[in-house]
């Protein structure tokens, strides 16, 4: 049943290509229906699947000579992320309602991307997972290169190459694992019990982890993210930050850490205070958190602020993964969902609500437009999204950051203090961007009256916020608040998932 999330998206993408030309309305309606259908399927599974244990959806031999299977399955973690994909997919279509240029191609690429993302989250055969993972790169490239803005071809190509280099590293690791295991299988559950030698794991782990973490925006491999986000059309940024970066983090957990848990064990010696890959990646994650936030603090382009904030937030996910305890890991999953929703919302506000109306993202130019009066809905949405993203309690971001912090306190107490610093800078940059973009003060040189006249003029010129935008924003905010107030809704699926035998290796690892 859950497999239909993939099929529906791919089928709809194919149908879109067959639509008669220039029928934009039909194209977006079809896309919306497909996204809603996918979401409905995901939601049904989410509701029915209470235990969080592994649920096999399909398992048939694919390439028997290599032991490769078409194996789809879902545990609680996959389910949460599938649900996230469904929500972001719907919201993305609602926020791209105004796409006029090559509409049906746009939505075809869009659904191809969504379908592959579903595929990654549901694959339990590593080969299959990798296939879906690679498919994601292509629509991503074209969505940015065709429909993007600022330096779109550069951004798109950078993104595609970074992703591809990352997946090349993953491929090397997978092939090595496949050959080294000698089990003649690509099944995740099979390889997870392969007992690779510690020496092998110490080599393979960083390779695969970094390969995936590139897509997750691990510092210092994050540079594709801000340029990519800025170049991308709104909805591609939403998907990119919302789900695609999660693919990287998901791969880190599901493949790198699950297959090579001993890769996190100490090397047995120290270099510059680093005693294991775990230390290294935890430090990199924290640098990412602080660095992303600090850079976001000085950006002039509104979208760059959000782009760097993604780097910062993804740092939390990676840090959560490196804590290796259940709270930290669960927090990382919640952060994936939470950041997916919030980054989507932020990009939608900046790209769709503001940029599409004002045609500028320069914080200085936006200031005098008095946007909090011109488009109050956008201002309110941004305030709520900003509050949620800076980790204010009551929203999903807080739950996630709290759990990650608890996990990090347990294992890296001193580093947790740096995370606190990161959170603080996070608050400041959200606030700074919000003030500059929406609540800027009239400059002192000109009279207040003059400015009010200007603001009035601008508010007349800006088209009002449309219904699809409102619906999309409400959907995302409601999700974030629901998770924030009642995180148990996700945790009851995530926690049992971490108790499955798949994570034996991580659980056994008490190297601290």
């Amino acid at each position, binding site marked *: 049943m859950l497999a239909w999330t993939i099929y529906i998206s791919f089928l709809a993408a194919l149908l879109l290509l067959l639509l008669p030309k220039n029928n934009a309305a039909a194209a977006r309606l079809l896309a919306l229906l497909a996204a809603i259908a996918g979401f409905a399927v995901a939601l049904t599974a989410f509701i029915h699947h209470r235990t969080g244990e592994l649920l096999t959806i399909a398992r048939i031999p694919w390439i028997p000579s290599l032991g490769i299977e078409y194996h789809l399955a879902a545990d609680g973690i996959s389910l949460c992320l599938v649900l996230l994909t469904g929500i972001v997919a719907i919201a993305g279509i609602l926020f791209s309602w105004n796409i006029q240029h090559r509409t049906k191609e746009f939505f075809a690429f869009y659904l191809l991307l969504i379908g592959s993302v579903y595929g990654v989250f549901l694959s339990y055969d590593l080969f299959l997972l990798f296939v879906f993972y690679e498919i994601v790169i292509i629509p991503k490239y074209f969505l940015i290169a065709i429909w993007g803005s600022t330096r779109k071809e550069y951004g798109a190509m950078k993104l595609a190459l970074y992703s591809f280099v990352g997946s090349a590293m993953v491929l090397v690791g997978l092939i090595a694992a496949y050959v080294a295991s000698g089990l003649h299988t690509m099944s995740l559950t099979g390889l997870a019990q392969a007992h690779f030698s510690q020496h092998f794991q110490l080599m393979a782990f960083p390779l695969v982890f970094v390969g995936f973490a590139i897509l997750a925006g691990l510092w210092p491999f994050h540079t594709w993210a801000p340029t990519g986000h800025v170049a991308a059309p709104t909805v591609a940024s939403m998907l990119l930050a919302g789900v695609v970066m999660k693919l990287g983090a998901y791969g880190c957990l599901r493949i790198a850490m699950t297959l090579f848990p001993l890769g996190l064990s100490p090397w047995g010696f120290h270099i510059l205070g680093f005693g294991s890959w775990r230390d290294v990646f935890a430090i990199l994650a924290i640098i990412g958190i602080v660095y992303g936030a600090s850079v976001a603090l000085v950006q002039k382009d509104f979208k760059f602020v959000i782009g760097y904030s993604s780097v910062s937030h993804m740092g939390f996910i990676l840090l959560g993964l490196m804590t290796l305890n259940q709270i930290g890991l669960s927090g990382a999953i919640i952060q994936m969902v939470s950041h997916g929703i919030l980054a989507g919302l932020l990009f939608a506000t900046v790209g769709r609500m503001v940029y599409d109306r004002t045609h500028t993202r320069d914080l200085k130019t936006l200031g005098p437009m008095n946007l909090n009066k011109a488009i109050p809905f956008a201002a309110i949405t941004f305030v709520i999204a900003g509050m949620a993203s800076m980790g204010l309690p009551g929203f999903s971001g807080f*739950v996630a950051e*709290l759990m990650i*912090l608890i996990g990090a*306190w347990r294992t890296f*107490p001193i580093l947790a203090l740096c995370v606190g610093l990161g959170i*603080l800078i996070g*608050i*400041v940059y959200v606030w700074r961007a919000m*003030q500059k973009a929406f609540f800027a003060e009239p400059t002192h040189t000109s009279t207040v009256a003059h400015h009010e006249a200007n603001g009035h003029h601008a508010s007349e010129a800006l088209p009002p916020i449309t219904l699809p935008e409102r619906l999309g924003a409400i959907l995302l905010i409601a999700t974030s608040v629901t998770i924030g107030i*009642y995180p148990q809704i996700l945790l009851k699926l995530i926690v049992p998932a971490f108790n499955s035998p798949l994570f034996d290796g991580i659980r056994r690892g008490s190297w601290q």
Partner: protein
Amino acid sequence: MPFLSILTALPVVGAILVALTARNPRFARILALAFSLAALALTITLALHFDRTSVALQFQERHAWNPALSIEYRLAIDGLGLLMLLLSAIVVPIGIAASWHVEDRASLYFALVLLLQSCLFGAFTALNFIHWFTFWELSIIPAFFLIKLWGGPRRTAAATQFLVYTMVGSIAMLLSFIAIFIATHSFDFIELAHLTQTDQLMPSVVSTFGTHRFLTQHLALLIFAGAFLGFAVKVPLIPFHTWLPSAYSEAPSGTTAILTGAMSKMGIYGFLRVLLPIFWPQMQTILTPLLWLAVATIVLSAYSALAQTDLKRIFAYSSINHLGYCLLAIFAAAKFIGGDTSLTPEKYAAINGAMLQSFNHGLTAATIFWFIALLEKRSGGLRNLHDFGGLRKVAPVFTGLMGIALFSSLGLPGLNGFIGEFLIFKGSFPLVTWATSLSAIGLMITAIFILGILQKVFSGPLHEKWTAFPDLTTGERLALAPAIALLFVFGLYPQILIALFDTTTMQLVNQLKF
């Protein structure tokens, strides 16, 4: 009936209604006032049904919320909680009344005020750290926007400073409590206090983190410092106070009334609910520096108030000064007295004084800012001491009533400000004599600047600008009457209040090891 949940939800409902339905300012403020009065009525009902003799937590609601983090939905009040609820319920209508003239986006303004009230109610009733922290943090948002959107000329800087300071404190506190959670697996204030009492809290924290590179002996202090910072910023304690004068003076006066009347009490509440029961051993360890901070707060803020000419800045500093007495009392109560049971009643008096002082200061300060709002309305926004003079002649009723409020702030016997300060000094003096003596300087300076205000604004030659200064209208008089009456009532019969929290204070004092 989940009274406390209803009480917290009521202003939220009001806020949504006001934001969505009110199309004109008049309707918005009336609706908002109606909701705040309903909340007041509900709070009074609670107070009437409150069992004063019981030490148990009352009106408790307790549900599992997030078992993975052992976070519960746990609401209850004791005397302290009830006192703070009452204060918030009284101050918010005052704030709304003081904001009667707000016309610009009034529905949003009053919606934010009601949201702020909801956060206050939530924070004063929650007993689980995370639950409480949610409201603590959320309260910053409406306050921020109230300053940011309706404030004076330098509102942006003021609002931002307010936000950043408070957030720094919050995050430090969060980190501390996370560390405690990891060691004890509990976020519950009551449980944590119990652990402290049985000498388990810090040993388990130290044993959890002792293996790391922390210096063991400093770990407990570090954790305490984190939590302390959060509250110290909120109250505030010098030197964490610099956000306050600009925030209070830039905020619209109605908002300032709520900020100083109720929101700063979140800090005092935190000291009494969290720091004292959970961290008193650490407070004892560094009592002398803490006392120095309290003395500095009292004296320096009074001096600063003396140097100001802007009425709002004066009372901003005066607020710091008044709450400094509360902190003095709280620190004094934490003093190690080595089994000298004769000093127990002094501790008890000090804590009672601190509670009373925080309530009365809230009431008085809110009333004073209401008067300042009325003054600003008449003067077109002017509020500098030197802008006025001789108002007594044109506006005798105004002068009289504001004079009452000012004298209450000064601590004149018979008015509500007196009894709290008296109890604080009575309790603290035997415990920490040197600090209390130094603090008395603050009292004198306060007297000087209050009298200075009376002189500069109301006496002297009438400034020719103000010959047409209107006196209070009948409506304003009627509205002010209950507030002024309360100043007298609580001044003459402080027992009404003390009876509410007496048992709570006894329990609190008994928790402190000697």
